[in-house]
């Protein structure tokens, strides 16, 4: 897409502005507050329905509808940006309009191309504009923040939210599988306890069942079954559900000992710390806890909100189109760190439960035997321990519900899970069982064993089915997550490789011989992007670590251009660079012009800068022609920026003269003269007489500009004399002579005495006579520019060192005259 024309009405600091571009580059220069960024904001709004400047960190309370429009315009339908564009593949010119009263709608005519244009703009969303703020985000950010910025540029938020969902699914289903496996192992262990078969298999279980059926004089089963194990058997006469069987109670007590021994082998202090440590981290940052609490709410919000949500589905707050979902997504991503800590807590709690729950079950069974045999003292001891384990249960539930512990409490598992006198207590109960029921029969024991095994099979089969489902789900979740990660890594890896290589090439071109061995490493990490750059062959470091601010700025520009080259080439040719060379020095600005010219000739650039010299360099490097140089000045809230197009004044005056319109030509000459010398005064740091209201005209600007140039030439001549540079001295003297001649020829001194009079006099001239005046002025104007053979013709400017002018230069450096005398040189 290329921009042919642009109209901005009532947007930011612009009242009504039209720019003709014809698909070519433009450079908008002007001091801070001259309104140039208003053009960038307007284009941003046209293409995205948003303004990047009004979104993101530090913009709370700022909205597009309130702060994107002109402050004095209350009719949002009148606040609009429109453009004529050419889109690749469409022969017709398209007209695009976006209004503030319906910012989510882009009007496209002819209407039939609406879908294509919207898809195109959706795909490039955010990839057309680089601001200095973006550069800092790219270069100075840590790897996760940088990833966020580059993800924004690549529209990867959808990929990252998908990744987050798939990672969560993988973890959740893995946890469910592990819990199901623990239940299955526990159920299997109960079978082992009943049968005393160390590794039960269908064959050995069948043998066990048939052995006990044989004792009860029953027919053997031909294959293992899990229900009705006492089929066709009669209950032994001596069996009672309430009777105690010393052999079986010994098995039950052995199970308690076994479970207690499992705990003894654990390092309870380490296990306690595995819960306490993440809880301490969560407690140390209230934001983490808040994120955990609001996580579900945010997820619900994302489920309910649609792409262009204007109303929050949860609280009915009004949102600018397209801003709610990124806001909720960023909150969800911030909760990811909290999720990791919460997961650590959950895993540790599950491990503790895996120890405590079988112990609790075994203790409950032992206690029921103690009560049956009326061994109350021992039962009291077992009950006390059971109470402590139940207290632990409550505490663990509280932890997984709230991720907090009561104030001053720290989890200490030894308090709940250690019992010194267990073996003695259980032996005492068993002794009582043996003395009370010394003669349990083999039939009674067999009957009881078959009952127990039936009871064991029920939870075992349930746990087995649950585990099979959990294993299937976990395998599925892991597979899609792994495949997605591989796809992401592959595509992004390739992308970052190409972008990294282009970045290095551009950076080397920009920095020339100094950085001919420069290298960089740009690669995706799990949730971030690693970006290290070479520092003079001493290794690779983050850009912020060792490089100067100017180098960091040029890295940001190169990285953006490399990304843009990879992503938009041939699709969306428009690139906006908003004041991106603030910290880059003059030499590298010149190089950047060459980089843009040599590598991005097929792009249409809209460049804003407060630096007129760089604007001239861009013209000299043929990135922009004279017509494309727009200087914004004298911005006012009522009128917006004035645009100075001095490069064009001669052709404009000529048009008037051709038509015989002396009045129009005179007006253009006067206005053009004011604009030109305003610009010269700024470049040569001239002093203008104070005037209340801050409005100057030709009569004020011209003498100041002439005096400024004469003063600079005088200093340059003195410097050349002090260095005994005769050639330079002669060059300067010739220049001074030319200047004096041009001043005399233009008879300018006569006009500046009384601008009103001379303006009136011009209007009384014949076109041919005014043409001569125009010719002499053109010669005068040219004196303030580079006149070297094969020179650039760009306006002369001063450079400064320690706040003092130190050289007079032009953009191509054909004029580069020192103003410092030999004795004053440092």
């Amino acid at each position, binding site marked *: 897409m290329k921009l042919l024309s642009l109209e901005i009405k009532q947007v930011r600091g612009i009242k009504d502005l039209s720019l003709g571009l014809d698909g070519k580059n433009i450079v908008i220069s002007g001091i801070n507050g001259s309104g140039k960024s208003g053009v960038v904001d307007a284009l941003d709004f046209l293409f995205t329905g948003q303004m990047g400047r009004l979104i993101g960190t530090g913009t709370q309370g700022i909205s597009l509808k309130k702060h994107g429009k002109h402050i004095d315009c209350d009719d949002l339908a009148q606040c609009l940006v429109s453009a004529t564009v050419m*889109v*690749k*593949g*469409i*022969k*017709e010119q398209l007209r695009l309009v976006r209004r503030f009263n319906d910012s989510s709608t882009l009007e496209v005519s002819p209407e039939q*191309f609406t879908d*294509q244009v919207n*898809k*195109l703009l959706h*795909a*490039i969303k955010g990839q057309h504009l680089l601001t200095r703020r973006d550069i800092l985000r790219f270069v100075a950010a840590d790897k996760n923040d940088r990833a966020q910025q580059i993800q924004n540029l*690549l*529209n*990867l938020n*959808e*990929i990252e*939210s*998908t990744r987050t*969902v*798939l990672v*969560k*699914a993988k973890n*959740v*289903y893995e946890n469910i599988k592990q819990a199901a496996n623990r239940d299955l192992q526990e159920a299997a262990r109960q079978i082992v306890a009943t049968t005393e078969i160390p590794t039960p298999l269908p064959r050995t279980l069948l043998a066990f069942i048939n052995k006990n059926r044989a004792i009860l004089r029953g027919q053997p089963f031909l294959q293992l079954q899990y229900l009705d194990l006492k089929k066709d058997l009669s209950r032994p006469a001596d069996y009672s559900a309430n009777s105690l069987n010393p052999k079986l109670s010994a098995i039950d007590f052995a199970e308690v000992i076994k479970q207690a021994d499992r705990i003894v082998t654990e390092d309870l202090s380490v296990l306690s710390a595995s819960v306490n440590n993440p809880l301490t981290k969560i407690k140390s940052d209230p934001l983490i806890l808040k994120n955990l609490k609001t996580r579900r709410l945010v*997820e619900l919000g*994302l*489920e309910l909100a649609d*792409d262009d949500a204007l109303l929050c589905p949860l609280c009915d707050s009004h949102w600018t189109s397209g801003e709610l979902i990124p806001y909720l997504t960023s909150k969800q991503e911030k909760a990811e760190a909290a999720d990791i800590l919460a997961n650590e807590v959950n895993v540790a709690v599950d491990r503790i439960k895996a120890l405590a729950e079988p112990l609790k079950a075994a203790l409950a069974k032992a206690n029921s035997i103690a009560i049956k045999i009326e061994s109350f003292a021992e039962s009291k001891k077992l009950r006390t321990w059971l109470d402590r384990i139940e207290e632990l249960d409550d505490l663990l539930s509280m932890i997984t519900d709230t991720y907090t512990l009561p104030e001053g409490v720290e989890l200490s598992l030894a308090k709940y899970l250690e019992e010194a006198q267990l073996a003695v207590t259980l032996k005492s109960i068993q002794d009582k069982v043996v003395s009370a029921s010394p003669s349990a029969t083999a039939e009674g024991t067999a009957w009881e064993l078959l009952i127990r095994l039936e009871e064991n099979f029920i939870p075992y089969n349930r746990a087995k089915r649950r585990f099979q489902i959990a294993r*299937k*789900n976990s*395998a*599925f*979740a892991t*597979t*899609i997550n792994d*495949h*997605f990660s*591989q*796809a*992401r890594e*592959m*595509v*992004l890896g390739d*992308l970052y490789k190409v972008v990294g290589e282009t970045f290095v090439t551009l950076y080397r071109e920009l920095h020339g011989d100094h950085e001919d061995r420069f290298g960089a490493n740009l690669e995706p990490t799990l949730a971030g992007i690693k970006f290290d750059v070479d520092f003079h062959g001493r290794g690779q470091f983050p850009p912020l670590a060792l490089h100067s601010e100017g180098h960091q700025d040029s890295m940001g520009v190169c990285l953006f251009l490399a990304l843009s080259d990879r*992503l938009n080439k041939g*699709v*969306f040719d428009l690139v906006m660079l908003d004041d991106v060379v603030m910290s880059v020095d003059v030499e590298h600005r010149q190089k950047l012009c060459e980089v843009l010219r040599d590598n991005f000739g097929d792009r249409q650039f809209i460049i804003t800068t407060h630096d007129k010299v760089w604007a001239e360099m861009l013209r000299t490097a043929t990135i922009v022609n004279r017509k494309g140089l727009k200087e914004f000045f004298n911005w006012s809230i009522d009128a917006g920026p004035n645009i100075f197009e001095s490069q064009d004044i001669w052709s404009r005056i000529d048009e008037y003269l051709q038509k015989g319109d002396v009045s129009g030509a005179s007006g253009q000459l006067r206005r053009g003269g004011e604009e030109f010398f305003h610009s010269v005064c700024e470049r040569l740091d001239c002093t203008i007489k104070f005037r209340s209201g801050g409005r100057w005209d030709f009569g004020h600007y011209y003498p100041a500009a002439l005096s400024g140039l004469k003063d600079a030439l005088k200093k340059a001549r003195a410097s050349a004399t002090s260095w005994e540079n005769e050639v330079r001295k002669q060059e300067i003297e010739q220049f001074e002579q030319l200047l004096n001649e041009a001043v005399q020829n233009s008879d300018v001194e006569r006009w500046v005495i009384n601008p009103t009079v001379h303006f009136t006099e011009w209007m009384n001239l014949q076109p041919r006579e005014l043409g001569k005046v125009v010719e002499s002025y053109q010669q005068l104007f040219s004196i303030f520019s580079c006149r070297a053979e094969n020179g650039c013709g760009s306006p002369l400017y001063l450079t400064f060192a320690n706040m003092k002018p130190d050289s007079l230069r032009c953009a191509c450096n054909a004029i580069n005259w020192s103003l410092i005398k030999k004795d004053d040189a440092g």
Partner: protein
Amino acid sequence: MSDNLPSEPSSVVDQIFEVFFENLETDSGIDKDSIAKLRKLVNSRTIDYPSIAKVIEESKDV
């Protein structure tokens, strides 16, 4: 009138999903029904945890 309409640019996001589905279909062992459901979620831009969980729980063995 145009004779060559601009095609929707293949964004990085689209490329990642393309490779994802290509690999799922080739070597994941995931059943076709489940892949179709995942594709529907991606196309309708509704990939969230509840919808993914539903596809997972309705899936066949991998």
